[in-house]
Every structure is written in C-alpha cells, then in structure tokens.
C-alpha cells in the first residue's frame, strides 16, 4: 500500500473543521508540554492547573469573557472587511483611537452625567471609524496599499497616545506616572458582580455580531460585499463601486474597534495609559478571530472566546509557575501556528492506493 496527499476539492464540513481544530489544540499542547518539561515542570500538572484556574474557576471564566469583548468587536468587524479583500490590519490603532476619544469625552467634555457613557461610546466609534476610513481614501485616491497604511496608522495612534499621556493629558493626581487622571464615576461602565465584565460593551458586541449577520444575509451592502468578494468583474458589471463598499465596511469595522477601545478604558482601566496595557494586541489577534470564523459572524463568538482563553491561560501559567513571559508568548504562538496549520490541512486528503493500481 502506498498513499498520496492530494487536494480535496470539497469544502470541509463543520464536523471536519471542528475536529481538526480540536486536534490541533491537542498537538500544540503536546509540543508546549515538551517546553514545560525542559523547565522541569510536569506538563500534566501544569495543564490541570491551568484548566482549573481558567475554565474551572469563576474568576478565570469571567476573565475569559472580559477579554473576549474587544476580540469580538474587532473580529466581527474584520470578518466583514476581509470579505472585500481589503487587508485591514489596523484594528489595533483603531482601538487606541477609540480609547483616546472616549478618554477625551470622559475627562474633558462637559456632557451631563447621564449622557456621558453613550457619548463616550459614540466618540470611540467615530474616532475608530475615521482611523479606518483614512486608508480607504489613500487607497482609492493614491493607490497606496492598505496593508502599509493600516499598519503605519497603528504606530501613529500608538505615538499619539504616548504623547498625550506623557504630555498634555498627564494626570495631575498621578504623581509622575504616565497616566491620565482617573475617569469620573459617571464615565465608568457598570460591571457584572465582582468580575471585570463591563456588560454594556458585551451587549454592544453581541448586537454588532447580530447586525453583521443581518448585513450579510439581507442588507444591500452585504449583497454588494458578496458579489465583489467572489468576482470583482461581476461587481463592475453590476455597477457596484468597490471603494464605496469598502468605505462603509471600514467605517463599520473601524468604528467597532473604536468601541472596543472605549470599552477598555471606561470598563477596565478608568484612565488612559500605555497603549500596550490598553490593548495587549487585541487588534492583531482579532485578525485570527475573523479568519478562524471564516465567513460566519456568529462563529466569531466562539473564536473570540477561544483566543481569550489562550490569553488567560498564558497569564495563569506565568503567574503559577513563574515562567518568563517570552515562554508564554512562544506557547500562544505555537497554538496559533497549529490552528493555522490545521486550516491548511483541511483542504487536503490522503488517498490510499495499492501498488499495482
């Protein structure tokens, strides 16, 4: 008997996708286990420990949900964008701009208290949307690749925030730390019990997922997205403007990322601080959230939770075993690597054949 690997023309079924993903998680865990062994840690003990402190504990679960909020907001928006083949890797910067705009609303605006939270989300949305909109203009006017511009705008956003927290917005009460002042109570989002789940943002995220689902299934915009994503030529034939479609999609996606940023500062930090603490790479991880969900926005709920779990598990390992944070990063990297690998593997099949065949 011999075998050969060949391309499988069929679209993998849900069952196949699910089992491949689970399998890849197991494989990744095995490889990470080897790293643990090298550090003299019993991997079995490590995993039971991680599981009991994440999925097995109320606090761990609540942290997973809380970290999934920004991932969901950004991931669902990106899912829409990627269908138009506009490669937006700027969600990170859009988050930061949203956080910045929300901070301005919280600290420096004069809105009445009861309007403060809605305004803070509104400003976050607008700032993120503007940040997402600019690369589409640059592309349609000057043909500048969005991969470059969205990435560069992440850095611009990062340095704007750094500048503000070190300079004009530096808190008077913060004794020299690079923070802004604390938000007033009326600008802080309510939490569920003693968790850090800021539920208004969670609800907004779920509404967004539903909205994107509706856009894709029954809105004119969704129809246009589907046509241009399958065939740009048919899009032109149907009179669909590629850039007009991308404008709207980027406004939605950038705005969603901006909402995530607003939620983080108003729900968790209650001030504007170093960009890496506000976002921890949510904007990049959301690319995977969108990509793993393929084209179904409802699935982003699951993939966002999965990515949040990987984040929280990493934190737990670092705290429990005192491993250097680089090892944690390597581990998360390995998990992502195996997930991506499995995605590719699903498109192939093994065919067995006898020698004489």
């Amino acid at each position, binding site marked *: 008997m011999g075998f050969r690997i060949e391309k499988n023309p069929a679209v993998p079924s849900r069952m196949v996708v699910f089992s491949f993903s689970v399998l890849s998680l197991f494989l990744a865990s095995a490889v990470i286990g080897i790293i643990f062994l090298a550090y003299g840690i019993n991997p079995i003990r490590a995993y039971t420990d991680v599981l009991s402190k994440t999925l097995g504990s109320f606090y761990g679960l609540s942290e997973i949900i809380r970290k999934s909020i920004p991932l969901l907001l950004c991931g669902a928006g990106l899912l829409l964008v990627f269908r138009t083949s506009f490669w937006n890797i700027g969600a990170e910067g859009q988050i930061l701009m949203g956080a910045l705009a929300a901070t301005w609303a919280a600290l420096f605006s004069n809105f009445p208290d009861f309007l403060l939270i809605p305004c803070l989300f509104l400003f976050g949305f607008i700032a993120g949307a503007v940040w997402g909109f600019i690369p589409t203009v640059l592309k349609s006017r000057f043909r500048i690749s969005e991969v470059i511009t969205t990435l560069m705008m992440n850095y611009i956003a990062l340095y704007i925030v750094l500048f503000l927290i070190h300079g004009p917005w530096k808190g008077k009460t913060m004794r020299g730390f690079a923070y802004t002042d604390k938000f007033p109570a009326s600008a802080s989002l309510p939490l569920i019990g003693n968790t850090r789940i800021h539920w208004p943002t969670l609800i907004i995220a779920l509404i967004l997922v539903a909205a994107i689902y509706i856009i894709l299934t029954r*809105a004119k915009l969704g129809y246009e997205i589907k046509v241009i994503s399958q065939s740009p030529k048919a899009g*032109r*034939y149907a009179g669909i403007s590629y850039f007009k479609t991308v404008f709207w999609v980027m406004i939605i996606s950038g705005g969603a990322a901006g909402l995530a940023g607003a939620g983080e500062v108003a729900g968790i930090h209650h001030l504007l601080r170093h960009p890496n603490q506000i976002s921890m790479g949510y904007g990049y991880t959301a690319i995977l959230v969108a990509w793993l969900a393929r084209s179904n926005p409802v699935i982003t709920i699951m993939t966002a939770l999965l990515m949040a779990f990987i984040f929280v598990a990493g934190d737990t390992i670092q705290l429990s075993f005192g491993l250097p944070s680089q090892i944690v990063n390597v581990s998360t990297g390995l998990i992502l690597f195996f997930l991506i690998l499995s995605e590719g593997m699903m498109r192939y099949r093994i065919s067995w054949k006898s020698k004489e065949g």
Partner: protein
Amino acid sequence: MKNSNPILSMRNITKIFSGKVRANDAVNLDVHPGEIHALLGENGAGKTTLMNILSGYYRADEGEIFMHGKPVLFKSPRQAIENGIGMVHQHFMLVPQHTVAENIALGLKGLPFVFPLRIIEGRLREFVSKYDLSIEPGARIWQLSVGERQKVEIIKVLIRGARVLILDEPTSVLTPEEIDRLFRILKKMKAEGKAIIFITHKLGEVLEISDYITILRKGRVAASLPSSAIAQKEEKAKAELALKMVGREVILDVKKKHVNLGDAVLEVKDLLILNDRGSEAVKGISFSVRRGEIFGIVGVAGNGQGPLVEAITGHRPISGGGCTVTGEIGYIPEDRLNMGSVPDLTIAENSILTQYRNSCFSGHLFLNLPSIQEWAKKLIAMFNIMASGVNTPAKQLSGGNLQRLILARELSRNSSLLIAEQPTHGLDVGSIEYVWKSILEQRKNAGILLVSGDLSEALALCDRIGVMYHGKVTIFTGPFSNKIEKIGLKMIGM
C-alpha cells in the same frame, strides 16, 4: 469500426445530485480507438456530468467503467489521466498569471526538481510540430486568446499521455477559423488511434467530424448510432438529430414581424477607443441603433468588438468621438462565468445582479428577500431553467442553464438598449429558437445591438449588420440574401 474492441465502456452509470437530481440515469457508452464520438443533448441533459465522472471529477453513484475490458475506478482526475483519460472543460481551468509552460508543468509527474521547465519546453516543441499546434511556451495565459488557451488545455492533456480526449463544448468559444484548426488536430489524433469524445450543440459540426453519436435526454441515452446512419442531406440530418435531442421538431427559421422604428437609443459617432496596450482598437466608427431594430456586429474575434462594447457599457474610456445611450442598458456579456454571474451565489441572488437597486428588490438599506425569491421563480419558469430551487448556488447549473438565467435576467429588464454578446453560446437548438424569439420580441421597446460570432444568427435576426475588421466597420442593410458572400469577404478584410 465496430469490430475493434472498445477502448472504453461505461455501464449503467447513474449520478444523483443532492438526493434528487438524476443527472445521469443508467447511461451506457462505448468508445473505440480512432473514433470521434459526439455526445449531444439538451442543456442539462447530463453530458458534462457524465464526462466529469469519466475523468474522475465526480464519482458515479452506480455503474462501472471499463478500460480495455478491465474495470477501473477513478477517485480523482489524476487517476483518470494516469489511465489515459483527459478532459478539456467547458470552462477552462488555467492559471492566468502563469506561463504556458508552467501551466502545462503543473501536476506533471516525472519531472526533475531543477529546471523542469526546460524539459517541458522541449516536449512542447515536439507536440507543436507533431500536431501543428503553434504556441509560445513563455507566453502568459492571460495574454492568450480563447482559442490559444484551448490549445494549451489540449496540450496539457495530451502531454500526460491521454488516449481518450474529452472536449466539453470546445467550439462554442472559437472563431470559424479556429474551429477548422481544432478539427484538423482532432483528425490527426484520430488517425493515431486516439479516441475523442466531443460535446457540442452545433449539429453541423457533428455531421462534419463525428463517427458515432450518442444523444442524452434527461440523463438517459435517447439514441446511439453511427453517423453514417443519419440522413445524407444536411438539413434533413440536422432536423433528425434535433428531433432526437429535444423530442419535438425545431424550426430555426424565425418569422420577423415588422416593427415600427423609434428614436435612436444608441448613437456612436467617430468613436475612437484604445485597447489595454494603448493602441487603437476602434478607429473612428459611426453608427446608430434605433428602437425597434436589431443591429448586428460581426467579425473575427479581436477586431475591436470587445472594446466597442466595453466603451458603450461604460467599462472603458473613450479616446475620441462620442457615444450616447438613451435610457438603460441591458447587457448579456460573453463571459458568463466571471462577469455575467457570480457562481458561488444562489440563483435568486444572481437573478438580481444588475437590478438589485430597483425598488422592487430593495429599499434604502435592505433587500426585499421574498420578492427576490418570487422574481427568481418567475425567471426559472419563463425560461425553463433546469434547477432544483432558487436557493441553490448558480454554479450547480449546467452551462446552458446558467446562460439561460443571464438571458432571462437581462431580457426581462425593460431596458431601452439591449446589448447581446454571443447570446446563444452553449444553448441547445430548442432554446436557441426561444431566445431568438425573445430577442425579436424585445424590439417592441428596445433597440438591440447583437454581437455574434455566428454569422447565420446575425443573418437571421438583424436588420442591419456592421462588419468589423481592424477597428473599422462596414455596414450592410438587409435583406442579406444576396450579400452573404460580400459580408464574408469583409470579415477577412477584402
């Protein structure tokens, strides 16, 4: 010929799609070496499906395939080609950015790891001289004409050692000259003892080249006979074949009722258009199309017809002169798979591709899904489209049924100018009759610009014919009966 043993036999082949569509129903087919076997049938009769089974793309639900009397089972196209069966598809499958040699090398076995392209180019030359297939190995696919692409597909199959060559509607995209060239190649292959299965809707070709004919109807074999058993006179022979295919008589002789002419809906004046390479594709032509008339554009492909239509539909800038369209344009594009439809979307979604902004189908933000479904059902009924439902992806339609969907959509638009590019491409004789009638019907409220590679179609339908040659146009006014020869000569620039 029947004395030799068949190289290939299909026995009781049945294929059922999604549990209900019986695309093939107990089909038997024998093919002998040195035979050109024509496979005929209405749109959706199951021809492509049967050949996809033979070439390993689909697996039959029932039935067996024998090669040289031995049972074989193909799980993939690769296994079929290893057994000497290769297929050139209705829609080509080349990688446009790659060169000819690279496309041919793709998936070829037994090539060295380094410099495989040199070997390929060597072998290519061998083929080129043997079959008279002139082709430049270094050319990129997107630069080639359709006829040249087809040559690449054929070489790709032959170089893998095919002894049975399947051609799915190879001629519907070719110019008459290219068809002649293809037939010469096929005859050479036949003389070498290869077997050729040839799908077509053009009955003249069947009579010209085939040795044996199998006709499918609704997935079953309706007739299987040697070509010599068909009537000798061409007209009678065609009628006989059409009757066997469609089950009724087909009269491809349309009665043109007189329609009063209205205002001009298209006015082209001294129009100058550049092609992608920046040279003049259309060199200052003028004509107009009035409501109620059919103006035909004929000519050998590549004489400026494409850029002309692109300019009229607003997909290409004009460099000089003017082009005025009054009212809305309905447009049936030649490229039905990439332009005229979105194969991955459903039939319902495709049925509104050019009209989704219409207030019947959408409001400010949302689509009106129920009315879209209704509409798609109406089109399916009107044009007799064979589909299992309006929510199945358009790519599941047979080639001719996809064409009918596009025709149905564009013909029911109430546009004032209808541009029809090769409207009867890939349609069976029965539907050609219907489409011709529908186009004539359109004259009531539209002017029609018919771009056709099929001169007999243009002669049958048009009131005036513009022959394009090297970017210029010469206009003939009907009746054409004593001008046919002149038109033919103009097409080759004489």
